[in-house]
């Protein structure tokens, strides 16, 4: 412990902490911009400048470690002036169209201007970069002109996800965070995970907005059939200002009905369907000597990552479609038949925590119903924007259940949104199918939690099933390396591109590990509350197999619920 003085307040803090961390323990709020609680210290924006006695110049509080006897002043006129000047210089390079920016109201730069009481015209002439807005990706929109060079996205894309879509280019005043050789995002290996959007403090990286397409469909006369992903019900309330981890499936359905969606179904159902197909595929591979380890394929970011960086390992991916695409195929075939409507009159919409799902919808493989199976994929944030724009008071809404026949999901489907959830759901079903006995305990806590790699060995009637769970693409890359080297001694691996799983996805409200953990807890809480917790016990699942699909892995199931993958290695050249 060292003794320091901050703004006249004497403190004892552990050695090695930064001035910023020390100040926060004393409830002194030093403003920051490039600093992000889950990332490395960047120390580039110089907004957190403070005075340290004995130092000639101001120091950055985010990176300056405390030392015995240090005297720090965080709000002298010199400090406040320097912060304002640094901010003014940033603003002189930033477009001034805040009123019509997608980040309006959620922008960290904007908040800083309020906190620092910027109330006079800029003293510097505004000079922006003149880059075109890159809207080429169906997942994210890039406006390099708004970038303030905090490099949070560079860390997210290059270190957390190891995709390498963009990084700092050029030098000095010319520095920009762009793709190499000014490529369009769509021509880069970008997998659309949206983790860059999650950390961008300004409007430089935003979710590709598809809300206008929904409004168009609302007046177009089609039947709007929506499916809602498991993690949406634990993030939508947060996106509308409530606490992280607030569970609100009923209010969500009410809000969507008010917006004009005709049918609101629960993707927990198709998550259960995925478990049936994927679980039986795993059994088939184990029994008949198929390619092992089998790796999950629910996550479109991960699938594209594997297709781009490791196409030779595509055999390991389960051929089962993601829940979104299974539901898409089912809605335009089975549901259309059942409801007596022409599939061409259906507009199939998914509400997802995910930006990469927008790309998945457009894959040519996913037209098995004869039409594009899912027409539009909206993120939680976009749906929240629509709810706000419609003047719906989400907090006070009554609860409405999901529509039948796909309104019933099991707890197994519910935890798909959490890292380890797909694995746990699959194990619940695989165990009971192999043994024919009831599972003694439903909670596979070994595969829960936020460690990058989780491993477990499950004894299923003498068969030792070895499983692994990884999340974030850097961990997935390590796992791929093991698979390639033949050192991945597992039967089944779950991979999710986003850290924490879907609840930390690119389309969720701005994440931090603290919030993601609250969302994870909420997902497991929901699982506990549900009457049915195993996919194969879901009556809607039993019904669709009895009435329509036959059995898991049947020919019809293969046609509608399974897919194939392609190499995208050319994106690296």
């Amino acid at each position, binding site marked *: 412990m060292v003794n320091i003085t901050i703004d006249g307040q004497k403190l004892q803090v552990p050695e090695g902490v930064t001035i910023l961390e020390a100040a926060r323990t004393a409830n002194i709020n030093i403003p920051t911009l490039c600093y992000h609680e889950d990332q490395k210290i960047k120390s580039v924006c110089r907004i957190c400048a403070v005075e340290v006695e004995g130092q000639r110049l101001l120091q950055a509080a985010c990176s300056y470690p405390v030392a015995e006897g240090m005297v720090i002043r965080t709000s002298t006129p010199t400090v406040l002036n320097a912060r304002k000047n640094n901010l003014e210089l940033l603003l002189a390079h930033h477009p001034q169209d805040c009123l019509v920016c997608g980040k309006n109201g959620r922008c960290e730069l904007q908040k800083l201007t309020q906190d620092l009481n910027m109330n006079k015209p800029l003293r510097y002439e505004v000079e922006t970069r003149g880059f075109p807005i890159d809207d080429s990706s169906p997942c994210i929109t890039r406006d390099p002109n708004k970038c303030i060079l905090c490099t949070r996205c560079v860390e997210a894309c290059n270190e957390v996800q190891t995709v*390498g879509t963009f990084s700092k280019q050029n*030098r000095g005043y010319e520095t920009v965070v762009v793709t190499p050789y*000014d*490529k369009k995002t769509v021509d880069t290996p970008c997998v659309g995970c949206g983790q860059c959007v999650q950390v961008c403090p300004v409007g430089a990286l935003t979710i590709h907005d598809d809300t206008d397409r929904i409004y168009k469909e609302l007046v177009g006369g089609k039947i709007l059939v929506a499916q809602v992903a498991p993690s949406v019900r634990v993030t939508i309330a947060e996106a509308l200002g409530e606490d992280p981890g607030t569970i609100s499936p009923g209010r969500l359905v009410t809000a969507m009905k008010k917006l004009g969606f005709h049918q609101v179904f629960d993707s927990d159902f198709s998550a259960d369907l995925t478990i049936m197909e994927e679980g039986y595929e795993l059994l088939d591979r184990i029994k008949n000597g198929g390619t092992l380890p089998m790796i999950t394929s629910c996550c479109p970011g991960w699938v594209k990552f594997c297709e781009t960086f490791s196409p030779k390992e595509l055999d390991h991916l389960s051929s089962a479609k993601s829940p979104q695409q299974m539901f898409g195929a089912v809605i335009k075939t089975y549901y259309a038949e059942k409801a007596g409507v022409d599939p061409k009159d259906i507009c199939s919409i998914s509400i997802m925590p995910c930006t990469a799902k927008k790309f998945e919808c457009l894959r040519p493989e996913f037209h098995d119903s004869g039409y594009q199976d899912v027409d539009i994929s909206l993120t939680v944030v976009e749906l929240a924007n629509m709810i706000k724009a419609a003047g719906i008071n989400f907090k006070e809404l009554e609860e409405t259940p999901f529509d039948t026949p796909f309104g019933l999901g099991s707890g197994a489907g519910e935890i798909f949104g959490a890292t380890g959830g797909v694995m746990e759901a699959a194990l619940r079903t695989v165990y009971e199918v192999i043994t024919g006995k009831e599972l003694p305990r439903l909670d596979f806590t070994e595969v829960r939690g936020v460690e990058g790699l989780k491993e477990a060995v499950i004894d299923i009637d003498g068969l030792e099933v070895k499983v692994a769970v990884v999340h974030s693409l850097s961990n997935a890359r390590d796992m791929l390396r093991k698979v390639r080297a033949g050192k991945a001694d597992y039967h089944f691996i779950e991979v999710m591109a986003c850290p924490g799983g879907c609840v930390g996805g690119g389309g969720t409200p701005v994440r931090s590990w603290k919030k993601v953990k609250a969302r994870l807890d909420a997902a497991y809480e929901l699982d506990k509350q549900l009457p049915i917790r195993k996919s194969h016990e879901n009556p809607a699942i039993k019904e669709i197999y009895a009435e329509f699909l036959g059995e898991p892995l049947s020919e019809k199931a293969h046609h509608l619920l399974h897919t194939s993958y392609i190499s995208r290695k050319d994106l690296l*050249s």
Partner: protein
Amino acid sequence: MVENRYELTTPAAQLVEVARIAAPYKNKPEMLMNVVIQVQKVVPALSEAVAAVIAREMGISQTHVSGFITFYAMLSVKPHGKYIVRMCKSAPCHVRGAQEIVLALEDQLNIKMGETTEDGRFTLEYCPCLGICDVSPAIMINDKTYGDLTPDSVREIIKRYIREDV
């Protein structure tokens, strides 16, 4: 609008050579400078295709390679002339009259900064501090530096290069 700096195709034979240079450094990103310097000797410029080959062979991302190339003034993404005239863009040269030197150079060679003469002999570029502020304003032509410049003296220097009297 940002100009398109990257319209350049590199012949396949040169790309093979690039791959040969980069391949021994697989998974050694710290050797990138070494690789890029060698590569620059065999290609007219570090084009998109060149960066892709280096990235592939070294097992790093293309954005890593291009971020590296665009950071250093001595590495170039577009072809340049036989003589690269680099004007120091730092403050000491600026206050000692760099702008006049630039005007003289642009006038004499009839090109703007960043351009190459039609005959492919001269390229005008800015570069970061040359480290010879004591003789500012200063320029560097290929690997030779010239300081204490005036518009007249810089014209004389360029004339010698035009005559190949160097």
